[in-house]
Every structure is written in C-alpha cells, then in structure tokens.
C-alpha cells in the first residue's frame, strides 16, 4: 500500500516538475530537454530489442533517420500536413527494419551486432546517394514545424510540451507492452530461449516483434526530431547516433525504462556541456565512452544500486 502511494507521489511530482520546467528554466535548458525527450524514444525502443532479446543493435540511428526522412520528404516534397506523417514515419521505419533485419535477428551475440552495422551503413549510404529522393549530402531543408488546431509547436517552449506528451505516451505504452502477454514472452525469451520455446513461445516471431517495436519507437523519435531541428542531413543518422543510443540504453540498464530515460538525460546534457571544449569536444566524448566502459561497464545507475546493495548487506549482517 505504502509503496504504491510513494510511487504515485514520486511520479506525480516528477510530472509536475517536468511541466513546470519551461516556465522556470532558461531557453537553452529547454532546448536540451527537447533533445532528451526526443532521444528517449529510440532509446526505449532499443531497450525492447536489447533488454528482451539480448540483441545489441548499432542500427538504431539509421532507423531514427528513416523516420526523420519519411516525414521530411512527405511534408516538403509531397505537401503532407506535418501531423499526418507520424503514422507513415512509424510504418516505413518498421517495414524497413523488418525487411533488412528480420532475417538477421535470428543471429545471436556479436553476429547480430555485425549485421546491424551492415544495415546502418546501407541506410546511411542510400540516404547519402539517392539524390533524386533524399537530396543526398545537401540534406532536407525547411521542414515545417508541427502544428495542430491553430497552435504551432515552433519555439523550444512550445515544442517542449509536444515532446513531453509524446515521450509520456511512449513511456506508458512501453510499460504496457512490458506488462502484456507479449512482454511476458519477450522476458521469457531473454531469460532462457530454450525454456521459452518449450512452453510455446514462438521464439522467431517474438524476436521479429521486438525488432519491429524498437523500430516503431525509433521512427516516432525521428518524426519528432525532423520537425524540431527542421533541417536534416544523412550524417545526423550515421554510426555516431547509433552508438549514442546504444550507450544511453546500456547505461540505463536496458530493462528499466526509467533508468534509460535518466541515462539519456545525463548523457545528452553531458554532450551538450562538452561544447565549450570546442574542437576537443569529440575527444572528450570519446574519452567519456572509453572511460565509462572501463570503469562503469554496467551503467552509471549500478553505482547507486551497488552502494544500496552493500549498505543493505551491511545492515543485515
């Protein structure tokens, strides 16, 4: 009883703090928060794949880009209303992910990672070279901002509420998926594949479903991203964001949606605050990845948990 109440209180106050943020925080912080909210989508998506099937993907950046390019091209070249392209963005991304990765998702461990690198490079090269469709290295300019019912989400403050809304929806949906029958199958799958298949979990289909889910979240994230930055370029969706998303979900511990959101916030702000380092920024970023992996391989959050575990062990002794 008590724990349920505390949980509601924590969730409620977190929500209130999030709602109040644009009113109190400077524009720059709101701007970064928008990226954090956008990135939580592909990161949660990656959690489906990695947390529940143990497969690590380095193609999430490409899927994110597929969503972004779908909406960008539909709105700028075909004159669609921005709000109408959310569904096509998600659908195209899912179809592409299943077409390219559906067969590869059977592969375990490192072999799946290798396949996703292939997928990542293929998508990036096509975005770069299919100039008639994507404008190639020119990128897509003047993507319209999102708007609905006479209200436009153009400034960082306006966009913040939209991103928050979508992030919340995706959070709640992710939680529901995890609790559903499908989530149960996926968890069974990641714990013991053989045991899961023996109790009638269709292993192959569950894995493809996890891949499709992760792509759907990435596509929705890409949709938001395109309408926020309003200029996209193939290099925004290369191996670099794939690595970033992977690290965010790794640091968050894959299976905990809250953990991944927190890790996204910490890492995204960290990369933003590295900006003053100028040309040394990327060196510092590389060092963060390298040292992070050397010293906190199981994520930043394990630091707290480990301390909690040792103190609990200490009190029981």
């Amino acid at each position, binding site marked *: 009883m008590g724990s349920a109440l505390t949980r509601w209180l924590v969730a409620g106050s977190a929500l209130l703090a999030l709602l109040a943020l644009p009113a109190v925080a400077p524009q720059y912080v709101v701007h970064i928060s928008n990226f954090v909210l956008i990135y939580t989508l592909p990161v949660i998506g990656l959690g489906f794949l990695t947390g529940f099937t143990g497969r690590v993907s380095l193609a999430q950046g490409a899927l994110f880009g597929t969503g972004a390019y779908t909406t960008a091209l539909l709105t700028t070249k075909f004159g669609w209303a921005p709000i109408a392209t959310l569904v096509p963005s998600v659908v195209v991304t899912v179809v592409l992910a299943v077409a390219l990765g559906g067969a590869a998702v*059977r592969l375990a461990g490192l072999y799946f990672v290798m396949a996703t690198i292939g997928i990542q490079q293929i998508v990036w*090269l096509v975005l770069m*070279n299919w*100039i008639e469709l994507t404008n190639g290295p020119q990128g897509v300019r003047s993507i319209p901002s999102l708007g609905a019912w006479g209200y436009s989400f153009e400034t960082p403050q306006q966009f913040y509420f939209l991103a928050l809304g979508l992030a919340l929806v995706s959070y709640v949906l992710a939680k529901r998926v995890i609790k559903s029958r499908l989530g149960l199958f996926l968890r069974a799958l990641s714990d013991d594949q053989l045991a899961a298949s023996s109790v009638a979990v269709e292993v192959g289909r569950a894995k493809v479903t996890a891949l499709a889910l992760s792509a759907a979240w990435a596509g929705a994230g890409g949709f938001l991203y395109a309408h926020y930055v309003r200029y996209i370029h193939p290099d925004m969706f290369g191996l670099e964001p794939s690595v970033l998303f992977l690290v965010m979900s790794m640091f968050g511990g894959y299976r905990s949606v809250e953990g991944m959101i927190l890790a996204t916030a910490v890492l995204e702000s960290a990369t933003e605050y590295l900006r003053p380092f100028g040309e040394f920024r990327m*060196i510092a970023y*590389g060092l963060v990845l390298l040292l992070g992996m050397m010293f906190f391989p199981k994520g930043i959050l394990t630091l707290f948990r480990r301390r909690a575990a040792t103190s609990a062990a200490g009190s029981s002794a």
Partner: protein
Amino acid sequence: MFGQLVIGGFATGCIYAVVGLGFTLVYRTLRMVNFAQGHVFMAGTFLGLVIAERMHLPALPLLLVVGAVAFGLGMVLERFVFRRLYHNHEVFIVGSIGLGIVLMNGVRVFFPEPVPFPKVFGSEVVQIGTARFQEAYLWVVAATLILVVLLHAMFTYTRTGRALRAVAADAEIAGAVGVNVKRAIGLTFGLSFAVAAIAGVLIGPLYFVSFDMGDMVGLKAFSAAVFGGINSIPGTILGGIVIGILENLAGGYISSAYKDLVAFVILLLMLIWRPTGLLGRETPVKV
C-alpha cells in the same frame, strides 16, 4: 577497363585484407571486435607521414618503424585499456568505438585538412597489358604478400606463434599447460595494431590522407573479415581481395555512387546465409 578495375580493386582489397587481419587476430583470441581498428590504420598513415617528412626515411625502414611503434602502442593499450574491456562484447564494442573517436579527433587537431603523403614508393606509372597504374600499387600487393607469409611462418613455426594459436583455440587450457595468456593477448593486440598501421602507410601515397579515412576503410575491412570468415586468416585475406575487386567493378560498371554499398550488402547477406563466412569454421550460437 576491366583489367584496370581489377588491378585497382586488388590493391584496395589487399588493404582491406591487411586491416581486416587486425580484426581477425583479436577476434580469434578474444571473440571481440575492436572497432578502433580503422582509426589505428588512419593513425598509422599519419605516423608514417610525420616520420617520412621529418626523418626522410626510405620506404622499407619507414614501414618497419611504423609497424614497430604501432606494435608497442598496441601492447601498451592492451595493458591499460583493452584489458578492462574484454569481459563483455558490448562493453568492448562501445569502449573501442570511444577509443577510435579519441584517435580520430586527436589526429584532427593536428591535421584538420586532407594532406598529400610523400611519394615514398616512387611515382612511376607501370603498364601491365592494357592496365596502367602507379608503382605504389605494386608495393601494396608485395607488402601484403610478405606480411601474410611472415604471419603464417610465425604462427606455424615459432614458439610464440604456437602459443598465440593455443590461446585462440582455448585460453583456459592454454593457460593450464603453461602458456602466458596475458602476454599472448598483449602480443595479439600488438600485431593487430602493427598490421593496420603498416596498411596505413602503404595506402598513404595513393590518396590524400585525412583524419576520417579510417571510418570507411575500417568498416569495409570488418565486412571483408566477416565475409571471408572472421576467425580465419586465409578467409580474411580472400574476403578483402574479393570485396576490393567487386566494389571496384561495381563502381566502374554500375554506379560510382553505390560503390561503397557493395561491402555492406555482402556483409549482411553473408551473415544471414553463413555467419561463419566463406572459410570460417566456428558455429555461432543460433537458435
């Protein structure tokens, strides 16, 4: 045109093969993929550039010096960096990508623009049949051949080579029968750095060199290694050369824009069809 494309592709393929060897050496021993490999190749190029310009070394000593420095660097990095990473392949992947980013942007600070590499391998044009190409291509092919023969001899006939193979086959048992496993792993990283850096010097004179050249070459060399069999040295050599030739032919006859796609499409198809690669033997976990 065909001959020209094949010879050019063969030389590029040799580079993929040699850089790919770095992936293979580490993978055989640790079942890990070192994604800094391409950037080590790039760093080797710039090390060669600096040494060639400052000390005016001729070609052969230049290759040896760069190889030796890279070997030492590989050993040192294994001791202080990689050793903390190779308990888990995700950790190793992200860590090595981080290292690659550090290397790439470290070089970028000193060489922000593409620069020409001194023509250490001569600049004459050689003609075979109807194909004409630079002398440096011959160096690439010859050096690859010599490297492969040397590596083969080392793995087959020397005590150290046998120790390395024993560790690759089963580190625990190798340790139990008295092989110094840590030293073997250190040597493996040393070797993988050395071959990549030598490949970097070999390709330098053929193009302008830039800090981001390791990205594409590294990933293609990786595709080549997987295609041929990432745990097989002959497989990697074969994979590198086949991919080099195929992509040059695709670039010449189909479309230069999609030349770079060849390696990655082959990578994906190969993994789905036969994850162990053309000549690989290990069965991957697959349910």
